[in-house]
């Protein structure tokens, strides 16, 4: 079919026409009347123009780097068509003293062994005329092909350039350390298992999710009516429950916060399913998780973890900012440690009060603190 006669000729051509219509001179020539029938609208030409842009960007980045020492940041991920892509970012200090992190290139790699990665990176560096000897640091996540002591990517680069110090990505490290530390305590470990269990049940189907949202909206409305919470743009949004993931930054914090916010609604949903679920497994699972949710232990650990992770979340957020530099990070580490220590020393009373009021609000039976001090004391010693 002739493209000229179609009603809609695609976004690109329509857009061209629109732009051309703004100027008579341009409009007279574009898409047809240019000398020697040149249209320059084929996909190859578009790609060539894009290529020119990219080339210019790269050369201006190269110009910015000059002969400064730089630091390699490398990570890999899979893209939509399941090809392994490796991104290469260069961090350096430019002439006026600003830290810059520039995206240099992205390469498709066949496999993720250290040798292949090294080859590809060296190729890119030499393509951009950067000297391997000028590397003064390397940063990767903690994967073994990257950090391995003898054959990891960092070791291969240190062979070439002995001053390319390897720094483990602190944001990754913090997350891993926190989770590992928390999981050492068996109570907390079971807590997280249960948390995932509950969240899975509640967000398993769209129907349950809808129910959850409806309940939450009703609670918020009620609270607004009796004047307990304020209204404002974006303050009382109805969200869903979020799953925590071990390697996802601050996902645990978000997950816990969302549960605290929607505690009542979650309880209602679980109760409903437990009463009129269609199969015995549904009823059994939900009854179990409902019991969990109503136990004092669960509410208590929920609050402790919220406090601890809340403190470290600050550090985690700070680490994710661009151009963060290493001394600031260390300072933040120290303040975080002090805060945790403070929480451990004198946060007990406020925590207990908070939990008690929370429990009263949600109709959970408060355990007698003198009664079961040993078990609670253990989870406190984190």
């Amino acid at each position, binding site marked *: 079919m002739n493209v000229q006669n179609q009603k809609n000729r695609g976004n690109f051509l329509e857009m061209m026409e629109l732009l051309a219509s703004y100027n008579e001179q341009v409009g007279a020539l574009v898409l047809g009347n240019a*000398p*020697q029938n040149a249209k*320059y609208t084929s996909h190859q030409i578009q*790609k*060539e*123009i*894009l*290529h*020119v*842009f*990219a080339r*210019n*960007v790269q050369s*201006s980045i190269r110009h910015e780097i000059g002969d400064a*020492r730089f630091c390699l940041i*490398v*990570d890999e*991920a899979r*893209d*939509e*068509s399941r090809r392994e892509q490796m*991104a290469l970012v260069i*961090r*350096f200090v430019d*002439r*006026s*003293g*600003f*830290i810059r*992190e520039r*995206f240099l*290139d*992205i390469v498709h790699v066949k496999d993720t062994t250290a040798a292949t990665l090294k080859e590809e990176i060296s190729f890119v560096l030499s393509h951009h005329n950067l000297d391997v000897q000028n590397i*003064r*640091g390397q*940063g*990767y996540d903690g994967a073994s092909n990257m950090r391995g002591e003898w054959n990891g990517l960092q070791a291969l680069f240190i062979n070439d350039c002995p*001053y390319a*110090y390897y*720094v483990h*990505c*602190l*944001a*990754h490290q*913090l997350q891993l*350390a926190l989770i*590992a*530390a928390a999981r050492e305590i068996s109570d907390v470990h079971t807590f997280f298992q249960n948390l995932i269990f509950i969240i899975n049940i509640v967000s398993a189907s769209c129907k349950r999710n809808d129910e959850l949202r409806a309940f939450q909206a009703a609670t918020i409305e009620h609270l607004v009516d009796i004047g307990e919470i304020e209204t404002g743009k974006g303050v009382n949004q109805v969200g869903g429950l979020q799953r925590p993931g071990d390697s996802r930054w601050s996902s645990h914090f978000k997950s816990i916060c969302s549960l605290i916010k929607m505690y009542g609604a979650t309880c209602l949903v679980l109760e409903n399913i437990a009463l009129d679920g269609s199969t015995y497994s549904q009823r059994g699972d939900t009854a179990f998780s409902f019991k969990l949710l109503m136990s004092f232990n669960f509410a208590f650990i929920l609050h402790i973890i919220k406090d601890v992770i809340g403190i470290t979340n600050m550090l985690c957020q700070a680490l*994710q900012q*661009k*151009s963060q530099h*290493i*001394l*600031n*990070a*260390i*300072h933040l*580490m120290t303040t975080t*440690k002090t805060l*945790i220590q403070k929480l451990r020393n004198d946060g007990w009373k406020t925590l207990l009060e908070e939990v008690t009021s929370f429990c009263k609000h949600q109709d959970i039976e408060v355990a007698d603190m003198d009664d079961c001090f040993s078990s609670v004391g253990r989870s406190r010693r984190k």
Partner: protein
Amino acid sequence: MQELNNRFNEQAIELLKLSTALDPRNSYKLFNVEDICLLVDKFYPQDFSDQEKIHLRLQLQHYELDVPNHPKLKSMSSIADLCQGLVETEKSTIYPLVDRLIRLILTLLVSTTTTEQAFSAMKIVKTRLRNRMEDDFLVNYLIVYIEKEIVERFTIDMIIDDFYSMKERRAQLK
């Protein structure tokens, strides 16, 4: 807490400890000439010749007296600010070796967030409908997308010139 200490205790930590000596916080309370010289000896021997190391020591002594009393540089809170401040006040030409050392330390990275940002950009560019995108195309697209700031500085003439220099074109736009 123990776990935090364990995880963050690596070979890089010593480097960090020594580099805190340059930190401008609390009006340069942590400043220590010995530490800085040790830092250079241990971690950056290739960037400074023997001659320069002696000079560095001398420069540091001047630096210790001069910079903490400078009205503008006095209240700096981080090394990154300090580095910019040094360039602004043109102190970096007076203490070139100190400046070089500060730049080396700043080059060290903290986290790999920028690469993660690149991947999130990739998710936006290479969507389900465009999953057969060529690698070349993807690379060019991403570079232009991520480094928007640089692209904004380009002029149309620059692009047209390069476009023509790639190969013979039929129509002349100039």
